[in-house]
């Protein structure tokens, strides 16, 4: 819920500075390893938007795939959990390169 509040806060502030009358779309980048449950974020989002510039707006989430780098054999590969096993050497010593993103990408506003 506090994350949904932060998203709507940042978006409303940007929209206000832009002189917009309302927000129609808020677009996020959410990594698969960001620890965010998309369904629950969507649920919180709707209630947080009530009474703000973002009321009735749509939340668009771009899911960013996880990428890991094996520290043993240098292989880069796609991962979908923190328990990433290198497909080449079967090591768990994997550094996460991508997938932790939690970013407000863009806001579509109405004048």
């Amino acid at each position, binding site marked *: *819920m*506090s*994350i*949904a*509040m*932060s*998203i709507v*806060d*940042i*978006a409303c*502030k*940007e*929209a206000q500075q*832009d002189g917009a*009358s*309302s927000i*129609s*779309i808020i677009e*996020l980048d959410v990594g698969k*390893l*960001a*620890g*965010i*449950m998309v*369904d*629950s*974020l969507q*649920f*919180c989002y709707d209630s947080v938007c*009530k*009474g*703000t*510039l973002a*009321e009735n707006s749509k939340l668009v989430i771009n899911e960013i795939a996880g990428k890991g780098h094996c520290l043993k054999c240098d292989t880069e590969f796609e991962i979908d*959990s*923190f*328990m990433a*096993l290198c497909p080449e050497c079967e090591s*768990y*010593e*994997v550094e*996460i390169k991508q997938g932790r993103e*939690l*970013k*407000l*990408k*863009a*806001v*579509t*506003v*109405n*004048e």
Partner: protein
Amino acid sequence: MCDSCGCGVGDEAVTFTKHGDHHHHGEGHTHTHADGSTHTHDHEHPHTHDHDHSHNRTIAIEQDILGENSLLAQRNRGYFEAKNVYTINLVSSPGSGKTTLLEKTLTEIKDIPFAVIEGDQQTMNDADRVASTGAPVLQINTGNGCHLDADMIHTAYKELQLKDDSVLFIENVGNLVCPALFDLGENTRVVIISVTEGEDKPAKYPTMFDTANICIINKIDLLPYVQFDVEKCKEYALQVNHHLEFFELSATTGEGMDAWYTWLRENIKK
């Protein structure tokens, strides 16, 4: 984020109470944004929603949603560094023994000045327990919130008036999900798992284990009575985070506590 407890609803409900105090601080708490501006949750906006949808335009923002918390955490980190305060964030599910571990540590080590920030949704129970060890303690009641954030810690340490060269323990709200996402400015994050839980906790809640530096396996005195495979638990945790360092102990009986104390003494010197 947590989908069951409605975390973070209304920061206005957050209270900060020193042991023995009955007055509340932080009510009517405002949000500080990244640019220093604040807002007070007045959601009224007198303009009309009538508008022409043909004038839509998209503003690129590219802003980290947790950026504000991260900035505040950096500020906390700077404060702790300037005062040479070593800060440890204790995270776990409820009932894993965080408070007992703290009580034991604060009782048995008397030559290090400690201070404690307690985080719970309700009650002063943990703060009262910790206060009986003699350490200064401040209770943050988060209301519905299921984690502590960097701003709450900022308010709390100002109240506590931390001593230079001390060690600050932060006992986070018992929850293995949300606290993982919030940097408080700590030096070390310690995740505690007790043997009465499932050994697959690290696999089920990987974000928490991924962001921790130390993993304490607590209540080992109960191992003869429960089905818990310590090696399997470690294996799962290392699969998530191969940097994790482990301590196996019982905060109740004291078994294994010496290794934890040794780690504590060695690390606060750095």
